[in-house]
């Protein structure tokens, strides 16, 4: 169907030059992963500046819709992070997250999104180095993929 009157639509979003810096959105539960990220900071562990953290009470507050929305609004990658199984401050929130995210990831993969773009991690409050490493690796993953073609 024609899409007339669309002469004012947005510009081409592809920016495949060398200096490509992906945008990574991360949703972190405040008890474990966010505290882990704080610990990485306390330890002055360096990691790429591409990540933007959104703090939520529990990983179970991370609506899969938010991940979808992040991608729609131009995030190149999304990370969901919570407490290790059994460590949830609310005892079982992260178990639900795990089910939801697995399904979301499977669906997105089926729709053609590279699985590296949406990832999940368990990072405890004591795993500062792990947090830094996760961000490091995912940023690299996404850099190697380039922007999502739309």
């Amino acid at each position, binding site marked *: 169907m024609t899409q007339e009157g669309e002469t004012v639509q947005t510009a081409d979003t592809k920016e495949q030059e060398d200096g490509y810096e992906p945008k990574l959105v991360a949703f972190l539960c405040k008890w474990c992963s966010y*505290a882990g990220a704080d610990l990485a*900071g306390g330890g002055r562990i360096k990691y790429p*500046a591409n990540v933007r953290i959104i703090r*939520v009470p529990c990983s179970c*507050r991370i609506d899969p819709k938010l991940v979808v*929305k992040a991608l729609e*609004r131009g995030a190149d990658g999304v990370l969901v992070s919570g407490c290790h199984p059994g460590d949830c401050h*609310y*005892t079982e*929130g992260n178990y639900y997250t795990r089910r939801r995210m697995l399904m979301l990831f499977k669906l997105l993969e089926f729709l053609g999104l590279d699985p590296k773009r949406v990832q999940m991690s368990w990072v405890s409050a004591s795993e500062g180095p792990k947090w830094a490493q996760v961000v490091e690796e995912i940023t690299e993953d996404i850099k190697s993929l380039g922007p999502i073609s739309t």
Partner: protein
Amino acid sequence: MTRIGVFVCWCGSNIASTVDVEKVAELAADLPGVAYSTTYKYMCSDPGQKLIAEAIKEHDLDRAVVAACSPSLHEPTFRGCLENEGLNPYMLEIANIREQCSWVHTDRDEATEKALDLIAMAVAKVAHNAPLVAGSIPVTRRALIIGGGISGIQAAIDVGLAGYEAVIVEREPSIGGRMAQFDKTFPTLDCAACILTPKMVAVSRNPNIKIYTHAEVEEVTGYVGNYVAKIRLRARSVDADKCTGCGTCWQKCPKRVSSEFDQHLGMRKAIHIPFPQAVPRVPVIDRDNCLYFQRGKCRICETSCEVGAVDFEQEDEVIEEKFGAIIVATGFTTFDHSTYKEYGAGQLKDVITGLQFERMVNSSGPTGGRILRPSDGKEVNTVVFIACVGSRDRAKGVAYCSRLCCMYTAKHGLLFKEHNPDGQAYVFYMDIRAAGKNYEEFVRRAQEEFGVNYLRGRVSRIFEEDGQLVVRGADTLSGTQVEVKADLVVLATALIARDDAVDVARMLGIPYDENRLFTEGHPKLAPVETVTSGVFLTGACQAPKDIPDTVATASAASAKALALFSSDVLTGEPMVSCIDTSLCSGCFACQEVCPFGAIEAVEIRDAMTRENKEVAHVIESLCHGCGNCTVVCRAGAPNLAGFSHEQILAELLAV
């Protein structure tokens, strides 16, 4: 009309050396809704806070973003700062530009850009913040204590002494629990009855404490501060008001029954009190064994009772009482060693459990304190104690260490040697775990002073030979196979959850682990709480505990309950979920996933269709604010204050 103030902290050079704070503040001023933006060296310092306070007044700010260190550090500080200026403390968001920006990045441009992004996100979010006020709920200042062992007794005493009502519900005819079965207690060796009986008397005399024995909690509804318990008072067949506890009835009763209290080493009557110091001293007719109830004839107790207290017609009574807090003190049971074929699968008469040994060694026990072989009543000269039966055994028992077997085994060895200094006591053990005040010393004393033989190794087999037990095992220290001819073998069976622990957990809405032990609120920081507010754990129902730990947790749990009772209303968590009933289709997915049972069904009248519908409703006082309900609901009917759909989405869209 949002008027947001943005306050960018230098944190000395911690932030300012990596982030161009001035530039960030300047650009932040152009963000939508921002009315004022500034920087300061140390925003958390007194002058920094003053600066915020003045800016709020001067620029008529209605909310603030502080770009500084992690919210886990100074969120309360800045909230207080807002509150002092008459703003709601929740009209604040923190942009974490230190831990998650300046400290982890090196490139100044990148870090500056990111800091601005983080502030933009916080600004977008704070624009959707709403003032939050914690709700308040009335509190019934009464504690329900399930279980009348030492744990429940101690908790009741603490609550009662503080001037609040406590109700103990005990399944057995008497309170006292496991401790009443013990002979002496480690490491001091004072007699259990001597220290327990005064406690039992103390609870029975305290006017604030009500005791229901031979009773069970059947159902619990409600929530913190407002629980309603249905308690079944099982028929005793004896009118407690009339009974004087004289003892004639149980002396006269012709029917002898194996005694549960004595671990089936002795007998009791059909009408009985479980042990002489029982509280209340009111007997119970065991209807399954009573001649009258079974065959319709006898009634000797009735005729012998001078006060006419025996009442065969008595029926169970179910009462309903209100409570503000529930203390779970249901205790433990011991591991059934019949799964251990190598130990005779429970068939060898002279292989007994530690608890049976306690009864045997007790001077008011079935043997009058003499240590005799159950098979033939002969004096025991050689006894073998085996530690870790069921404990630390993933295959046949439980994975955990029961924690007190080492101690009571040492005690048993010592008591045996005390009774029979010429006898031989052997202990087969895996490790000695004696972490407690004077515990290690106690074990040493058993070994060194009393000459109990400790053999490090597992027993591979126990068998009968010539009317005597032979215990075959390894001594791993000497590396030899040993065989000990023993008159008696005592197994240190594991402490495990009671058979009906899961039913109790479900009734109370508390989680339990793979061993059916109740799960504490937090393994470190909330050891006597549960995820259900107002339900507390004490004693061995949570994990095996010795008496001092049990008493300590009992006092801890009662302190938690008392804290609840310290005011007649409770202040709830302000960041709780709330369900927009106009969006609710009543699928109750939220209820299914709520870890705290904080969602109930309510009936409302739909204004549009004029019909009633059942929708979900959050019990604020139970909600911990995890947000699970907000995600499981497809229509987005539940929303979480402080982390609302609007707030998180705004934050995301600002990235």
